[in-house]
């Protein structure tokens, strides 16, 4: 209570007590920059991109509040949401066609104007925005369509879609934002929606706990982010991107003070929280408590990539410190390897994919860190397709087998009637994730890995080998799952979840259990996503000179220019070197070959242990039992946190409770509440309800005013 009650005050003061020295005037003196030309106005209808999802959310919210609405009978909210998101997608495409390779700006309305703190509700449209818009609105439309079937019959049907609409609204605000304040608003908005959706089944204690965990961990990151924004405003006098980038363009790490060099690290903290990197990744696997479409949309395809987006967008800030991007790279690389090892030993399908998501996000951070923002965003783009596909596929399994997700308890789904589409699309998704040649993941992962070998410094080569090893693990755990679940002998046990649309007679007893084959909506969505997973990689191959159409887009986007020029200054342009010296000198080319081989090896190992000779896997596991147990238990990180942080905290808390809480804290809280109360109680007798008392109070006040004035005049103050 006390902390909450302090919060508004803190936030007010923190806005107010910004010293008056910082203002944008100083920025003008720095030389011409890449973004110095005036930004053209963008299409006005861009405002509909967030507006349609918001409207959908409102409509669904109305349904959720209407007591007469029966989710068992009608799917109207679902369709409203799909329609809203689809319209948003269509608008996005229209807007993107206007953007091309330009940078545009749309001001929807004035929002905050307090002196020089100007933060409008305005959009900053550049190719990076375009890519993110495509991913977010496209994937969310598909997921909503999927969920309209998946969630049918759930008590919170309308509520779910209201949250989804809200999420897309916040997410589009985040990626369209023209200033840090709006970005932060969207950032908090998606966090809130994520919290609400993880805890969607609020009757389940584990769901509530997971939601809480996500919220708290994210709060740590967001605190850093907020501090970073504030510091940025204090240093550069603006929160709007265009003036900010202009102000930044004259700066180099040598020319800025130490306090400026902290900014990227603070922002990074926010990104690590949102995108689940070490050490703040712990919330993401637990977030799988939410409904599966949520996992697919928020915790795989869109929201968790916000951190990557943010660093890509604010790259000019991140180059202010020479250590910022390498830190990002190393954290990303370590996370990728770490999460992949855990993923190898899990049995829960969604958890495997959750760790895989953490691992792939690690790749993206590594990409940005080694100065390949193109690769990072490219991987973000392809990953959105195949990871959404994988989640939705496992969601279909979960939906069909009453919540069964344990890969030891289902097998050979390929042969079950009605599961063909799921099997084939899952195969495509797994291949893409494993980096199978010429599917989407193959191209994007290679771009990152190759760059790691190209960019000099800070042990990036080691990082590259780590990445390659991770790729091997990725291929292995992906196909471990695929071979176990979809191939092999047909065998399944239902989970313990009872779906509302099953008609009560069966479900729990295995002998009577009939899997519930996915309907047309799920199959359609899976198919579309599978096509995306298979072919989306080609946008990075064809349609442009370097890295295809995608490379062209990224080349034209604002933030990327900075990293590209930095890479060029390091002499780290792989292609330039490659053209001079042939195949083996161009890492982008030989990396394709190497990683194709590695991917295939991984798949082969999985094939041997999990399809051909499943007993061998168990034997192997027995032989390396300690490692297996370690991995199964996720390196005991949660327990480690428990022992290292929570336990000591609890111990300390207990001690503090004994000494402090009873005396100091309780005393302080009591004092914080008691002082105002004491003042109130002192005044209260004046409020006795008798007219004369009030009159006397007024007269005394009048006397006091006149007496003060008399005294002031006497001492010569006027």
């Amino acid at each position, binding site marked *: 209570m006390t902390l909450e009650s302090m919060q508004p005050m803190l936030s007010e003061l923190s806005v107010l007590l910004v010293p008056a020295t910082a203002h944008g005037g100083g920025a003008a003196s720095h030389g011409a920059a890449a973004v110095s030309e005036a930004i053209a106005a963008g299409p006005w209808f861009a405002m509909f991109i967030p507006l349609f999802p918001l409207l959908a959310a409102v409509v669904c919210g109305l349904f959720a509040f209407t007591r007469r609405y029966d989710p068992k009978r009608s799917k109207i909210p679902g369709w409203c949401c799909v329609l809203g998101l689809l319209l948003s997608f269509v608008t996005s495409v229209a807007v993107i066609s206007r953007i091309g390779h330009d940078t545009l700006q749309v001001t929807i309305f004035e929002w905050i104007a307090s002196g020089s703190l100007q933060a409008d509700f305005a959009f900053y449209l550049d190719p990076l925005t375009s890519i993110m818009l495509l991913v977010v609105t496209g994937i969310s439309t598909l997921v909503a369509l999927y969920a309209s079937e998946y969630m049918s019959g759930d008590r919170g049907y309308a509520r779910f879609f209201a949250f989804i609409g809200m999420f897309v609204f916040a997410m589009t605000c985040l990626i369209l934002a023209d200033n840090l304040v709006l970005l932060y608003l969207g950032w908090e908005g998606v966090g809130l929606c994520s919290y609400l959706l993880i805890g969607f089944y609020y009757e389940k204690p584990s769901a509530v706990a997971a939601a809480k965990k996500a919220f708290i961990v994210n709060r740590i990151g967001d605190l850093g982010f907020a501090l970073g924004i504030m510091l940025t405003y204090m240093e550069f006098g603006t929160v709007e991107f265009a003036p900010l980038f202009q102000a930044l363009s004259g700066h180099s790490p040598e020319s800025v003070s130490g306090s400026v060099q902290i900014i990227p690290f603070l922002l990074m903290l926010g990104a690590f929280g949102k995108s689940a990197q070490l050490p703040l990744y712990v919330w993401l696997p637990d977030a799988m408590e939410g409904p599966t479409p949520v996992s697919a949309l928020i915790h795989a395809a869109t929201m968790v990539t916000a951190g990557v987006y943010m660093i890509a967008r604010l790259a000019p800030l991140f180059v202010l410190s020479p250590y910022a991007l390498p830190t990002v790279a190393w954290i990303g690389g370590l996370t990728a390897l770490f999460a992949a090892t855990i993923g190898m030993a899990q049995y829960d399908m969604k958890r495997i994919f959750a760790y895989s998501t953490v691992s792939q996000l690690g790749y993206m951070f590594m990409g940005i860190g080694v100065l390949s923002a193109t690769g990072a965003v490219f991987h973000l783009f392809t990953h959105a397709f195949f990871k959404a596909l994988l989640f939705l596929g496992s969601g279909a399994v979960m939906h069909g087998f009453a919540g069964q997700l344990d890969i030891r308890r289902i097998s050979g789904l390929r042969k079950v009637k009605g599961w063909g589409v799921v099997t084939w699309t899952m195969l495509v998704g797994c291949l893409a994730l494993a980096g199978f040649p010429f599917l989407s993941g193959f191209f994007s992962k290679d771009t990152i890995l190759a760059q790691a070998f190209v960019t000099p410094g800070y042990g990036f080569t080691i990082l590259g080998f780590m990445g390659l090893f991770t790729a091997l693990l990725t291929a292995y755990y992906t196909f471990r799952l695929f071979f176990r679940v979809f191939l092999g002998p047909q065998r399944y046990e239902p989970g313990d979840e009872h779906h509302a649309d099953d008609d009560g007679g069966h479900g729990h007893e295995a002998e009577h259990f009939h899997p519930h084959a996915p309907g047309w909506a799920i199959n359609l969505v899976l198919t579309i996503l599978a096509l995306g997973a298979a072919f989306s990689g080609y946008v990075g191959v064809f349609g442009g000179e370097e890295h295809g159409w995608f490379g062209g887009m990224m080349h034209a986007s604002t933030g990327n220019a900075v990293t590209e020029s930095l890479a060029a200054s390091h002499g780290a342009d792989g292609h330039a070197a490659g053209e001079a010296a042939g195949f083996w000198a161009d890492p982008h080319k030989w990396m394709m070959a190497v990683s194709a081989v590695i991917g295939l090896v991984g798949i082969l190992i999985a094939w041997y242990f999990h399809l051909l000779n499943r007993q061998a896997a168990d034997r192997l596991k027995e032989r390396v039992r300690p490692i297996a147990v370690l991995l199964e238990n996720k390196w005991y990180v949660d327990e480690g946190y428990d022992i290292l942080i929570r336990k000591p905290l609890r111990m300390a808390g207990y001690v503090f409770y004994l000494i402090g809480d009873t005396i100091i804290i309780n005393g302080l809280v009591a004092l914080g509440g008691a002082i105002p109360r004491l003042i109130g109680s002192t005044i209260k007798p004046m409020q006795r309800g008798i007219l*004369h008392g009030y009159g*006397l109070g007024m*007269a*005394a006040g*009048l*006397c006091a005013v*006149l007496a003060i*004035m*008399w005294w002031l*005049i006497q001492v010569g103050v006027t």
Partner: protein
Amino acid sequence: MLNAGIIYAACVAGAVGVLLMLPRRGSQLALLGGLIGAASLGAALLAVLNVTQGADPPVGERPGVFFIVLAFVAAAGAARMITHPRPVYAALYFILVILASAGLLVLLAAEFMAFALVIVYAGAILVTYLFVIMFAQQAAEEGQEANESAPYDLSAREPVAAVAAGFIMLAALLGLMYRGTGQLDSSSVMNAQAAARMVESDPAFALLVQKAERALADQGTLEPGETVAWIESNDREAWLTREDSASAESGAGRLVTLPGDFQIDNVERLGLSLMSEFPASLEVAGVILLMAMLGAVVLSRKIQPLMTPAGGTDTGSA
């Protein structure tokens, strides 16, 4: 200039006096209180009138004996009004205060307002008050002995605190006001401002100028082509300029004395000022009166609580 010490001392003494005068059961000291109060007022007046300073200002600068009498009557009436235990007498004493202050207004050359005060206040408002007091007392006394005040009229509420507050305020008010009026005569701006009102642009003044021009023409002082530029009312002089003269630009003209029977009386000025400067305010005042009439009707009507269908007493939905 003023002996502030005397004023503050008089405030303290006055406070004691009023405190003694306030109604209390068994109080015998009311007369003494009245005397103390009158003495302190007298002392304050002496201080204000500069008698204690020894310096003898010109006769015209001091208010005359009428003022002294009326001041005492007003103050005594007010003191008695707030201390008399019977409401009817209190209202009558208030009439006395009004009559005395009307007298003060006459001394200040505000005859019209003095009469208006007597007619409106003493004549209309106070009579209504008396009606209400009578109405209330008649009913109250049904069960009581005649000639007996209601108990709540017999004792003052928190007399000490109230008197202290009142007189501290009085002391501070007087101290500040006298400091303020001390600055008044040093600034010439104020009187220039007063004169500034008498200018051509003012419609009220235009009428006065016309009147003066007529009077001067009748007298034969005004030559053809000359107009009255402005009038200094207290000096009874007028500044004439020639319209056709080129020297009008430079403000050349002549000062003439207005005829002896030329009179701009206060009522005339009042009316002109009222109608020319504040006509819209007059409309607003009308609206306020309309509102008061409506309000009185709404407030004083009798509405008995009726039975609701549920059987309970309807006390209003709101």
